[in-house]
């Protein structure tokens, strides 16, 4: 009997494709995307309690000709009325809602610092890493709790950029530049899209939240983490005021 090769090939390629899909399947996040037509908004402000901190500037120890002699410490960036910048705010444990973010996030090496210092992202997003500096930088993201290297990319000259995937598993990522040990950034990679980073006035907005009661976590690199309960009603705006204490001196 003559067996037509094309059917065999079809079965073989089908097996290979399904096998590859099985292997490539990402770790299933405990989050389901659904249409949010009656969502509410969470608006809030994060403030630093207590007296304003006097923090010594970063002493630049290499490439001073370009980076300068010192850089103001970016750790406690406090705006008007005590609003604290660079706090990541996110809903913990939310299981369903709007679609995940898919745009490419950005991390720029600029004036021997990372910009932005803190940002949120979703699993599956990509990151564009670039340098505006005429010195060698490296962008070296690590798991913040284990220090395990995610990858380590050289940015050898001004104008260089590259786009890379974020890890497949949600985690807090700490980014460093090995060539300039003061350079740090944080990326909160989450499995739900309900996150925001506070601006220079300490304010944030999270939109299209399905009605319900949630735990809102506010995280700051030095002041630590604080959970707050928030109830969101359909079509309404819930307001939250969070106080973080400057417990650590960087």
């Amino acid at each position, binding site marked *: *009997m003559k*067996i*037509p090769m094309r*059917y*065999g090939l079809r*079965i*073989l390629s089908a*097996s290979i494709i399904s096998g590859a899909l099985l*292997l490539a399947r990402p*770790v299933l996040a405990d989050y389901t995307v659904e249409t949010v037509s009656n969502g509410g908004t969470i608006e809030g402000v994060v403030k630093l309690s207590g007296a304003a901190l006097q923090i010594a500037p970063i002493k630049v*120890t*290499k*490439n001073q000709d370009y980076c300068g002699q010192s850089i103001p410490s970016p750790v406690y960036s406090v705006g008007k009325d005590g609003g604290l910048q660079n706090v990541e705010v996110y809903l913990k444990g939310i299981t369903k809602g709007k679609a995940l973010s898919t745009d490419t996030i950005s991390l720029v090496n600029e004036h021997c610092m990372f910009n932005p210092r803190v940002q949120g992202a979703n699993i599956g997003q990509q990151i564009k890493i670039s340098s505006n500096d005429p*010195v*060698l930088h*490296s*962008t*070296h993201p*690590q798991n913040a709790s*284990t*220090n*395990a*290297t*995610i*990858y*380590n*990319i*050289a*940015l*050898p*000259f001004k104008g*260089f950029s*590259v786009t890379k995937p974020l890890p*497949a598993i949600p985690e807090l990522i700490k980014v460093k530049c*090995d*060539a*300039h*040990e003061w350079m740090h950034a944080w990326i909160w990679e989450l499995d739900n899209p309900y996150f925001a980073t506070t601006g220079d006035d300490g304010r944030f907005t999270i939109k299209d939240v399905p009605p319900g009661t949630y735990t809102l976590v506010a995280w700051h690199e030095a002041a630590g983490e604080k959970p707050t309960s928030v109830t969101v009603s359909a079509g309404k705006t819930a307001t939250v005021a969070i106080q973080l204490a400057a417990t650590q001196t960087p």
Partner: protein
Amino acid sequence: MRPDVRIATLLPALVTLLIIARVVLAQDDVGDVHQGKVVYEQYCALCHGEQGDGKGHYSEDTTPVPRDFRQGTFKWRSTPSGSLPTDADLEKVLVNGLFGTSMSSFSTSLTHRQRLDVIAYIKTFSPRFATEKPEAPITIPPEPPYTAESVTRGEAVYQKFNCAQCHGNGGHGDGPSADDLKDDWGNEIVPYDFTEGHVKCGNNGSDIYRVFIAGLNGTPMPSFADSISPAEAWDLVHFIQSLSPDYPKNVTGTPPTPIGKGAP
């Protein structure tokens, strides 16, 4: 004949073929974890620790410290930055050892089968090996002639890519960032001094090329895969080799053969 009948005829044969392929591959390539544990406890645990944490009995007297296997982070790989190593990468370290460290060669003390077994066991220390696969090894194009011109161009590449930031202008490992470098475990780590000779991860041109592209996971040595061209990378290899005492100083046009202690 209808297509679905033909498919039905073909399926058992295909399944049998896949089963045979699986058995053959399993026998050739995959080590036995239980056998590997026996080998590990006899040869590896004294430095790398019973738990694979790099804290074995002898670890305190060892510089650099033994690898902690729990992160799945390995410096020497053929795979891109951040990726797990392949089994072949790990076996190469077992066969060659790591020059200048306490990691000795197991080329004669262990059989190929025992090496595969112990690799299978070492991989159980990190959960990454259960959930991730190593990425495809990087491609290394053929080495161009080792000429004086290539070395000169390589010096310009060394400048262009700011290698001196860590490795210093003369390649002595004394650049401005050299003193503040740490590995993933917080241990101080120094940039390589190219004038010392014998690159730890292998002395062939392709070994050095691979480090530029793959980087050294867990260390400050980043990957230049996205910024350097193959021609630039080969010229840089030749410049690095020209700094080393392991290679003849006359550049003949053919890839250099390491001499003395540098011989692979």
